[in-house]
């Protein structure tokens, strides 16, 4: 990884006040983004949130109605995509289906009139990088999904771009291979040190792969930060409920040691905010725990997912498979560490008051 970035480090890619309409639909609303060199960024959002438009705009496949796109200190609005030093991996890979793997990777180099020997050497190098030696004579239809993605990756990297853009790079791959490819892509990009932005609607993917996440919603950027920051410190109600496994709770003040913070506020609770103890098992929070009833236990393989009934509301919790077994209908001790309180557009993380004197490390 490129390590910690200073605030003072100059942005490599910047969007300044970018707006874009498609007909009557405003796809982007005053987008301001700043991305440092060498980072791996995820643009995360649901479909129609504007994430792909942002990517296509940086690539030069769309032009903004207003605002500036800056790459490496230069405003590139009027520079065609092919001169922006950008590699693009399409969602469906868009490999040239009537060309071999070799010709696909060599295409951009031939267009740029590299000499034949250099092209040959570069293609060999990339085939080696993506572990596809021996496949140069194949056509895209003869490759597996994972191989196609890697060839698309190699094709985008061939002309040595300074910036790599990937549109939903894992969407077209089945679940098992996807996990492998995620790890592979992350390793590859970190190893090459190339600034990369990928678009995804899958929060797990963004959290696992990216150094930093840009959360988009309805054409706006909701929040930008490391996966950890977004998780621990959501700045908007959207981020609070989009990231993680969020459950809304209306009357949160009925939980012990939590106060209502104004009228019309509601709370979001996540399973990891809740500890569950069998009767008598609880030592740490024995005084401040409340009693709840187990409504459901779902085996998730690596953990157990619980649904608990507490003050008439159902809240989620998880438990390790190594802990002693909990049955449905059992009365248990429940301790809620904290809640995310949503007040209009404001977010307040409220900690359990009984912890007030202890320092809380999340």
């Amino acid at each position, binding site marked *: 990884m490129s390590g910690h970035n200073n605030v003072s480090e100059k942005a490599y890619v910047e969007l300044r006040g970018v707006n874009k309409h498609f007909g009557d639909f405003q796809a982007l609303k005053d987008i301001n983004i700043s991305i440092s060199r060498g980072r791996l960024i995820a643009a995360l959002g649901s479909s129609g949130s504007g994430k792909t438009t942002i990517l296509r705009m940086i690539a030069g496949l769309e032009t903004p109605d207003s605002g500036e796109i800056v790459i490496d200190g230069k405003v590139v609005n009027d520079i065609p995509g*092919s001169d922006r030093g*950008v590699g*693009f991996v399409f969602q469906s890979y868009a*490999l*040239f*289906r009537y060309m071999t793997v070799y010709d696909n990777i060599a*295409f951009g180099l031939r267009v*740029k009139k590299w000499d034949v020997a250099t092209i040959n050497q570069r293609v060999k190098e990339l085939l080696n990088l993506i572990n596809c030696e021996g496949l140069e004579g194949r056509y895209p239809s003869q490759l597996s999904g994972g191989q196609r993605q890697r060839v698309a990756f190699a094709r985008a990297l061939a002309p040595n771009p300074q910036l790599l853009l990937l549109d939903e790079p894992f969407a077209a791959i089945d679940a098992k291979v996807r996990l492998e490819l995620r790890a592979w892509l992350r390793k590859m990009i970190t190893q090459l040190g190339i600034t990369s932005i990928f678009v995804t609607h899958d929060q797990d993917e963004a959290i696992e792969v990216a150094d930093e996440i840009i959360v988009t919603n309805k054409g706006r950027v909701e929040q930008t930060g490391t996966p950890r920051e977004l998780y621990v410190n959501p700045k908007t109600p959207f981020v609070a409920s989009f990231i993680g496994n969020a459950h809304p709770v209306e009357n949160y003040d009925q939980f012990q040691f939590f106060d209502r913070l104004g009228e019309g506020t509601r709370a979001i609770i996540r399973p990891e905010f809740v500890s569950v103890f069998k009767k008598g098992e609880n030592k740490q929070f024995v005084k401040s725990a409340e009693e709840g009833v187990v409504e459901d236990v779902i085996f998730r393989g690596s953990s157990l997912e619980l649904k608990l009934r507490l003050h008439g509301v159902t809240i989620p919790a998880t438990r390790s498979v190594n802990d002693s077994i909990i049955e449905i209908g059992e009365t248990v001790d429940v301790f809620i560490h904290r809640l995310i309180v949503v007040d209009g557009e404001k977010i307040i993380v409220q900690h359990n008051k009984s912890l007030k004197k202890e320092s809380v490390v999340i």
Partner: protein
Amino acid sequence: MQMNRENAFIKWTLIVGCELFLALFLILPLVFIIQTAFAQGLATYCNSITDQYAVKAAWLTVKATLWAVGVNTLFGLSAAWCITKFAFRGKKIISTFIDLPVTVSPIIAGLIYVLTFGRQSFLFPLLDKYDIEIIFATPGIILATIFVTFPFISRELIPVLTAQGVDEEEAASLMGARTWTIFRKVTLPHIKWALLYGVVLCTARAMGEFGAVSVLSGHLRGKTNTLPLYIELLYQGYDFTGAFAASSILVLLTIIILILRVWLEGRGNKRMELRH
């Protein structure tokens, strides 16, 4: 087993039905054409098809067909490209207008041109001044042929191009390829067979066109008579041998095109197999 037997029954009924239908409506008339053409012996047949008017009519048909195919290939490619690769206002309208010639009766198509370029048109003085003859002359016949075969090529290309999407073109353009390179290396390989098929359809239709051409031709023997018009002329004059002999030329041309098409398709399939 039961199911299989039933399927076999349906299968053979359909096959026999198809073959009977083809025999009755296609093979039989074809045989009849050839038979009538040769009814008065080989010499008469040869005389009929080497008749100077027959040769001129055949030549005019070929000429009009070549023009129509050429123009419509160019137009079809541009129209299909523009409709599938760009988003713009009025796309629907253009798309509908392209289909118009199929829905308009050829006679009306002919009349449209007579009204547009004929004596009563406001364009006529201009055409007259520069000595441009359209109505009752070869240009009119070519125009009519182009008109009726207008949608054939673009209609073959549009579905293929739509299915392909624009990703590959975008990818190529991001790598710095120029439009012409993108067309040659990315788009053309994809639409090659659809294009050839469209050309074949267009050719077949252009050669057989009667209605619109009939209105515009003026029926000047040896000048503005195409093969179908010439055939009708002979037929109306009770020269059945002559009419059918001339028809046999048209049949021959059609068969050549059919063979060409089968050969092209075969090549296309072989290429594809190599890729799978």
